């Protein structure tokens, strides 16, 4: 869960940076930002302020989302708590769906 939270924080940081740049894709980034904020809120009680290091790119954000799937699924399979397993699996599923959507900005094909 800690790793999943850290992963969501990094993803949020990247999309925050991307969404802060005005452009035609800004609404899409804001939507993705909301999506991952919901993931984070499901994982932690307190709201945290993400910090982005370096330059955020759409490709890097998509790669981070994709890279988080396998660890999330492994954690879901191994979780002792059924509810926690379902939550982790659900976040992983959302990340997979995001990666599979061709209209997602910055998708790594």
């Amino acid at each position, binding site marked *: 869960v800690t790793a999943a939270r850290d992963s969501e924080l990094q993803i949020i940081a990247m999309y925050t940076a991307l969404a802060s740049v005005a452009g035609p894709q800004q609404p899409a980034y804001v*939507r993705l930002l909301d*999506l991952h904020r919901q993931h984070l809120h499901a994982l932690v009680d307190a709201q945290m302020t993400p910090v982005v290091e370096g330059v955020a790119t759409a490709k890097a954000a998509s790669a981070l989302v994709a890279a988080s799937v396998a660890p999330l699924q492994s954690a879901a*399979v191994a979780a002792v708590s059924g509810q926690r*397993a*379902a939550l982790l699996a659900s976040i992983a*599923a*959302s990340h997979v769906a*995001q990666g*599979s959507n061709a*209209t997602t900005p910055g998708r790594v094909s």
Partner: protein
Amino acid sequence: MTLVAALQAALTVEHQAVYGYGLGAAHLKGSRYRRALAALTAAEARRDLLMSMLRTRDVEPVAAAPAYVPPAPVTDSITAQALCRHLEEVCTGAAWDLAAASAADSDARGLAVAWLASAAVNAAAWAGSTDAEPALPGSP
């Protein structure tokens, strides 16, 4: 929910998916038809796996009904895609329940985690929009 109840509920949903994808595919063409057939094949494989898991636990799997009533009439490509999306949304709920009811590192947990991802991808594909990406697929 007990594991056996979750497995039976998942099997019931897959029976519906197998029937529903057969119905929906009949109204689809091209890539959508192929996507429906792929989902049908995957649902049949999961159905067989779920039946096997139940029999391993000395439980008789719930049988498929001869037919199922779709939530809305399926008469064309649009309504067929809506049915397919509905089927996947129902699957995400069953997969969530199975994940919650199963033990760590069990065969059922592994199936549930993979199924949830597959159903979320398919639901988004049938919706055809990023708006369809649920924050937490299958959550009650």
